[in-house]
């Protein structure tokens, strides 16, 4: 089912993409094509009586863009946090590039953009990126400027974040998540609240990251973004209810659009909570 796209995009991985700190672990793991970039085995996360993630088994091979789709409260953010090791599963195991997480070292191989911008409003664009870069490794000035250039903020390095528009902040947030050039990029609703032009720009950038060998997991509750992903994971009630390319999911559901496909799949899953 991941046939056509897979052959298109699984160009030789470029380990140079990985941050120097992460190269040994990430580079080696990425070369072994059998090793998934992200893997969850029997992941369960409960908060009291709520099962936010309810038994997820997934393995995501490297070099592709994965879309995590589901309504608000479906468990997308919790699943992401489990997969990258920012939360500990109640039961089950998570692996990044074949290494068991939670692991502090593996965080160097992950670029994580949260739903909130997570940048310092008092600081300038440059000070923000310099701060996050220093937490990841020793990067020169050019590397930081590159990260800003990609999101077209290089002309605004000295501007305080307070004076930036919402879209610019979102771009800076993305640059801060990618400055260390991680082989695994996890973006939690990266396009929420941004205008269509910027959304197109973001997706173009995601595609180029993927072409360079990075694995991207992008969560969204906007279905029209889904077709930009190589593969989709429908999530509802803490469970992955369907997986496949957009085309394939539509075909399997027998519907013309993904939203209907999603509803069809959720209807089929009796255990899912509304």
């Amino acid at each position, binding site marked *: 089912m991941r046939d056509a796209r897979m052959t298109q995009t699984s160009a030789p991985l470029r380990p140079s993409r990985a941050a120097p700190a992460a190269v040994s672990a990430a580079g080696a793991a990425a070369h072994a094509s059998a090793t998934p970039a992200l893997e969850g085995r029997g992941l369960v996360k409960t908060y009291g009586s709520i099962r936010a993630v309810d038994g997820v088994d997934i393995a995501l091979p490297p070099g592709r863009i994965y879309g995590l789709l589901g309504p608000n409260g479906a468990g997308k953010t919790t699943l992401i946090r489990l997969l990258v090791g920012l939360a500990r599963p109640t039961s089950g195991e998570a692996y990044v590039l074949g290494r068991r997480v939670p692991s502090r070292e593996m965080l160097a191989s992950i670029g994580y953009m949260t739903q909130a911008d997570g940048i310092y409003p008092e600081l300038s664009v440059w000070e923000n990126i310099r701060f996050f870069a220093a937490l*990841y490794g020793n990067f020169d000035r050019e590397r930081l400027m590159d990260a800003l250039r990609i999101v077209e903020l290089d002309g605004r390095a000295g501007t305080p974040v307070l004076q930036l528009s919402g879209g610019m902040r979102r771009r800076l947030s993305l640059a801060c998540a990618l400055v260390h050039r991680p082989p695994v990029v996890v973006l939690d609703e990266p396009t929420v609240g941004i205008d269509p032009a910027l959304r197109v720009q973001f997706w173009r950038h995601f595609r180029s990251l993927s072409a360079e060998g990075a694995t991207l997991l992008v969560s969204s509750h906007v279905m029209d973004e889904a077709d930009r992903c190589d593969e989709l994971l429908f999530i509802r009630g803490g469970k992955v209810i369907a997986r496949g390319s957009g085309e394939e999911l539509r075909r399997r559901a027998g519907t013309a659009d993904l939203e209907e496909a999603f509803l069809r799949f959720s209807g089929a899953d009796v255990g899912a909570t509304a």
Partner: protein
Amino acid sequence: MSPRRVTALIRRIVAQFRRDRRTLALIFVVPIAISALLGWVLRDQQTTPVRLGIVNDGGAAGARIAQAIIATRAESSILPLPVDVPASTITDAEARSALRDDRLDVVLVIPSDVVAGLASATGPHLVVMTQGANPPTEGGQVAQVRQVLASALASAVPGAVAAPVIEHQTVFGAANQDPFDALSPFFIGFFVYFLVFILTGISFLRERVGGTLERLLATPVTKGEIVLGYTLGFGIFATLQVIVLLAFTLMRVDVPAIGPLGAFSIGLAVPSAGNPLLAFVVALLLAIGAVSLGIFISTFARTEFQILQFIPIVIVPQGLLSGIFWRIETLPGPLQPIARALPLTYAADGLREIMIQGRGLAASGVQLDLAVLVAIAALFVVLAAGTIRREVA
């Protein structure tokens, strides 16, 4: 522990402060403004000259000191210090009756062992008596007498003399500690503690609420590095604040117009008392504890306003129980162990011992204060690190 990451945290905190002018003003200008206001208020209370009596139990040496004090009569008109110096010494009984009848404000007793005291390293031990009816006013009066005494000792005794230890007795009521003596070190400690706590608390709350902490924790930074980075980053500003505050207090000491300021800074009388560096260390240890306390408390607040709600809970009781307003021994029984567990108590005590009593590292009291402050700071660091929720260390 990566120096690069800790440095990044420190640089970031410094940059944030530099952008935030109002907060900078809060750190440096407010303590000075309040201290100045306090000094002004206390100064203007001193309107009438202090009527001094001298009782000499110290024989010839005592007489020499008494003569030196009496000799300042001529100068007292030049000195802005309004002390009405007596023409001769009186007996103890006369002094007490004069105090009771309100004919004298302060009586200075030169004890029989004054010769030994002058020779010893701890300085002469002198007794000052007041009525005991109005401790704040009498405290100011004693401070002024101390000025006269300091200059008289300097002229009466050749060579360097250690600052005199002055025991304050009262005719009425219990022996009372000079309230102003205790205040200026307390204010230094209190300001440092209060402001550092508030700033760290709010700053870390913003990290938690604004999503930057989540992002920080998604990097390979360790919890220890975060707490250390915060401690050092805020420590820079706490250090500057303590330096400015101490310098401000000591500058006042050096102002020749001693009189109006006598009540403001008791340090006036003992300019050489204690090592300012040691006082600085005490205040800094207190500040380090306050950084971690701020991080810890920020867990229990959701908004900046809720951080402010911790002032009456965390800060004010510490001030009240710190032994400055009421000595710990006089507190109700159940409150005493609480007072003895609070960092401000030890900082205030340490600062008082160093700045007023001129004690150094050799004094067991100072050692205890420093040890407890280090222990409390370490405990808060552990607590603070514990509140940073993370699956990996």
